[in-house]
């Protein structure tokens, strides 16, 4: 009887410790993952001096594009190994500040305090490259007669200040707002660039871009936003956007309007490095902004960089 009691107690202790170890174990694993990979990179460099490895992390909007660019680059340059992970722009920038990655993907410019933190941690200045342009189309039902809006009007609609299409030259029809969820980079971009305040609480938060397209297709009074590539789907149309009252309206589905910078709802996609890029990283950047790289950018549904972006890149690439 006594023995039995001991065994049960032992069983209990073992189980509790397994649970605790499992709990701690997983935490440690996630914390150390970037370091471990960085170490591997170091080892590889030691073994074969000619092989260089580049760690890239950051924006989820950029992760597919950069992965594709990296694959194409590695095919042509077998001695370079590039690892790309997502996590969000903020994650990429903080990893760069901590020195865990070589390049941070970011769909927003770095903040001043982040630049200062990088300087303090790494003792290096930050250098940035714009390698692609991302555009957002505002879409409405194809049966809605409205065809153009100013950025201000779109903002007022999404803030909930304009609730009827008649206020912007349309029919007497209530506006239904469709938007993405806060996990989406587009949600944040649209909030900062267009809404410039909180979204109206009446906005429906849908899980993906195709959900928005589906909803606007079935709702004459609906308005939504989506990557430009989606705006050509049947049942919806893209609004021609005017930067302000005096500007002319530009159709985002026309490539030149986006590449010329005339269409207002675009954002450059950034890559950040600490210290002036050299050797493998510089080579990779030059590949990205080359004609070959920009064709991949187009192929992946983004837009090539403009003359202004090339100017911006001079600092880092020359």
């Amino acid at each position: 009887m006594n023995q039995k009691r001991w065994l049960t107690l032992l069983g209990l202790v073992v189980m509790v410790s397994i649970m605790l170890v499992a709990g701690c174990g997983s935490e440690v694993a996630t914390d150390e993952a970037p370091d471990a990979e960085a170490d591997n990179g170091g080892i590889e460099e030691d073994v074969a001096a000619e092989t260089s490895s580049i760690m890239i992390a950051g924006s989820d909007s950029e992760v597919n594009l950069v992965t594709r660019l990296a694959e194409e680059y590695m095919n042509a340059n077998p001695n370079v190994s590039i690892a790309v992970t997502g996590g969000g722009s903020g994650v990429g920038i903080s990893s760069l500040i901590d020195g865990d990655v070589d390049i941070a993907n970011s769909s927003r410019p770095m903040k001043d305090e982040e630049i200062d933190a990088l300087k303090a941690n790494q003792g290096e200045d930050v250098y940035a490259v714009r390698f692609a342009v991302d555009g957002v189309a505002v879409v409405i039902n194809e049966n809605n007669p409205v065809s153009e809006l100013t950025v201000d009007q779109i903002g007022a609609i999404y803030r909930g200040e304009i609730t009827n299409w008649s206020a912007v030259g349309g029919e007497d029809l209530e506006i239904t707002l469709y938007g993405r969820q806060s996990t989406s980079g587009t949600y944040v971009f649209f909030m900062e660039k267009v809404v410039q305040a909180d979204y109206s609480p009446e906005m429906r938060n849908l899980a993906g871009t195709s959900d928005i397209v589906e909803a606007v297709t079935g709702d004459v009074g609906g308005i939504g936003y989506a990557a430009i590539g989606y705006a050509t789907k049947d049942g919806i149309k893209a609004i021609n956007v005017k930067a302000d009252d005096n500007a002319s309206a530009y159709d985002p589905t026309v490539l030149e309007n986006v590449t010329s910078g005339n269409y207002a709802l675009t954002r450059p996609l950034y890559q950040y490095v600490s210290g002036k890029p050299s050797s493998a990283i510089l080579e990779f950047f030059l590949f990205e902004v080359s004609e070959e790289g920009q064709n991949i950018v187009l192929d992946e549904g983004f837009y090539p960089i403009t003359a202004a972006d090339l100017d911006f890149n001079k600092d880092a690439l020359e």
Partner: protein
Amino acid sequence: MHSRTELIMKILFWASGIAIILFLVGILFTLLSNSIPALGEIGIGSFFTSGLWRPGAYGEPTYSINNFILGTFMVTVGALAFAVPMGVAAAAYLAEIASPWEREFFKPIVEVLAGIPSVVLGFIGLVVLAPLIARFFNIPSGINALNGAILVGIMALPTIITLAEDAITAVPKEYRHASLALGGTQWQTIWKVTVPAAFSGITAAAMLGMGRAIGETMTVLMVTGNMIARPESFLDSVRTLSANIAIEIGDVAFGSVHFHALFVVGLVLFIITFIVNLLADILIHRKPEVNK
């Protein structure tokens, strides 16, 4: 030798039982310990004030979950409002009226219904049910609480049918015989005798169906629109507690106030489902109203 095997088996079985308790305690502990930083920072009252849930606000973040509790309540009650009558009727038919081959035919169908992945139902809700609702009520969009309630009701049906049928079948034969012998029709027997006698089991079935409905995430996330404002009616978009966690846990910074606030939402959800399941359990184990 024999007694040692006996002992080992006994310990193994006992340990399995204890493991369940430990899991529950572990989950509760995780929820509580992760909730505390948010409760300290924001204050428990701020979660229940009339306002909005806006952790990523342009200005000052706010964390009121009142609208989500209301949304969860609307979807759940709406689901049960049609799933319980329908489920009990189907169960009464299966238990009392159906011929053996009908029973053999329908029971597997009910089980298949239970096995449909919630994301599939959500997709159907988005593509099929939403336009139907919009046309029927003549409203711009069918992405609303009603859509979610209908789909969640469909998901809760198998639970309700199976448990209610068990409860009705368990009613002693003598009851029916007595009723029929007194000249009652089959309808009167079911409606006045069998179903009332199985009442506690049927209520438990409804409660367990409700537990299923409250926690349902994927379908609701896809079809209710997840608006953060206070819903005015069933034709309005709503966001439920579970959908809110699913939406935001993906992009929340680990260890931030927002992260811990989501655990508070989880804790509230846990407490609600715990109470519902506890009530169901009490009802299941209650003695039948009428004794032999």
